[in-house]
């Protein structure tokens, strides 16, 4: 995975890039979960 | 069949006439657009170094930014007055195809925009000592305005029914109008700098394609935008 003979050490940029990618995906999935549980709660309240 | 088409044209004409007559009585819209356009040009004078050497290369851009902003103003006001005075409902009750409203409003908006442009051109020419009254440039202004107004009228019809009415139109319109603006600026620049027609044709073609495509789509979906 880490080639000691790599010409340019761009590891930090790669980490930053993947942090953004995974971070955003995670945030979106979490937002879906949060919104869904909120909706479920509202649904059970309103169907009483 | 022909009678149907004739009444369609009459409806379109009636809408245009109504807007023109109302405007000539009050002249609110045109004066607002005109003053705004001149102010924008004034601001550009300070924002950009319009000295003689750079002037020729930025004129096309300055003109079209001005027209785009003034055009937005006109589009907004034109549709807003429709909604506020409840005219839209009246128009919708008329026994004519809804698209007549679209064409009527679009042509009306186009005329307003052209009037402003026709006044701005000589003023800019005088202020910056550059001859803008060239047939090539006028053609570009016509084609570009048609494209801008055909999308703008449809979007303004929507925007006016949205809460954040005034700010919504530019947000909706500008990303979609990019091809028009690019092509219009490049074509205008081409004519002003005296490039051979062959070079400018690409941009003119782009304008024509855009105009045709978007007028067609707007015409097809207009119904869905005014349904009550």
């Amino acid at each position, binding site marked *: *995975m*880490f*080639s000691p003979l*790599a*010409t*340019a*050490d*761009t*590891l930090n*940029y*790669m980490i*930053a*890039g*993947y942090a*953004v*990618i995974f971070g*955003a*995906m995670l945030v*979106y*999935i979490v937002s*879906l979960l949060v*919104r*869904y549980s909120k*909706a*479920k709660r*509202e*649904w059970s309240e*309103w*169907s009483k | 069949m022909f009678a149907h088409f004739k009444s369609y044209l009459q409806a379109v004409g009636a809408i245009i006439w109504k807007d023109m007559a109302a405007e000539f009585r009050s002249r609110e819209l045109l004066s607002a657009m005109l003053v705004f356009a001149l102010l924008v040009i004034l601001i550009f004078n300070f924002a950009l170094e319009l000295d003689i050497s750079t002037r020729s290369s930025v004129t096309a851009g300055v003109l079209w930014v001005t027209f785009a902003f003034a055009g937005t103003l006109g589009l907004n006001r034109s549709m807003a007055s429709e909604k506020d005075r409840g005219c839209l409902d009246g128009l919708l009750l008329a026994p004519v195809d809804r698209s007549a409203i679209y064409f009527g409003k679009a042509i009306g908006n186009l005329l307003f925009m052209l009037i402003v442009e026709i006044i701005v051109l000589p003023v800019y020419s005088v202020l910056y000592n550059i001859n803008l009254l060239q047939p090539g440039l006028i053609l570009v202004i016509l084609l570009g305005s048609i494209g801008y107004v055909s*999308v703008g009228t*449809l*979007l303004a019809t*929507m925007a006016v*029914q*949205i*809460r*954040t009415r005034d700010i*919504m139109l530019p*947000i*909706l319109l*500008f*990303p*979609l109008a*990019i*091809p028009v603006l*690019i*092509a219009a600026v*490049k074509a205008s620049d081409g004519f002003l700098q005296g490039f051979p027609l062959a*070079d400018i044709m*690409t*941009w003119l073609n*782009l304008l024509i*394609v855009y105009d045709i*495509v*978007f007028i067609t*789509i707007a015409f097809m*979906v207009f119904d*869905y*935008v005014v*349904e009550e």
Partner: protein
Amino acid sequence: MVEKTRLLTIFDILTFIFMLVAIGLVFFYAPVEEIMGQVQKVFYFHVANAWVGMLGFTVAAVMGGIYLWKGERKWDIAGFAAIEISFVFFLVAIISGSIWARPAWNTWWTWDPRLTTASIVELIYAAYLLLRRGVDDPNRRARFSAVYAIFGFLSVPLTFISIRLLRTIHPVVVGGADPSAQGGFNMTGPMKATFFFSLFAFSVFFVDLLWHRIRLGKLQEKIENLRWHKN
């Protein structure tokens, strides 16, 4: 109450597996690129995100068309879901692309045709989302969204062409880097495999998210209907 179907759970698991495999390929199978180093690996998921972003736009435009034709709310819910997901994915594509560009081309941004068009597309998504916020009546909101999605989608090819012509006829020198550089590296066999698998995994991921988002939308609609009837 919309129960999570068995099928959806299976799909979730599949998605997870595919994504895991894709990540494995990127970090353990694909070789490190010689010139750029590790950052090149961002490319795999960067392009996958962009691909999904555009795919979503297509889906939304089609959903919009079907909604206008049939008038059933479910198409609107699907269209909204597609745009929302595309907005996120495309934004990630743009930012990750920028992070990749910095060490690769020594600039955070270039105004090359693809990137410029990408930013315009992202703005169209944003405009769509703002449009929805500003309309309260669900039917009108659905109609307007559908119309704008269609208009927006159809404007993209023309926008791309016009910017492309702009940059070709008048070449622009941007920060010393060649704006038309395709990333400037050749893909070896394992790289290509990783690349295509990433595209595949992300497409599956998109469908999975879309499914979930539509589920959320349907539940929200049911609540709105219930609320409306009780008042």
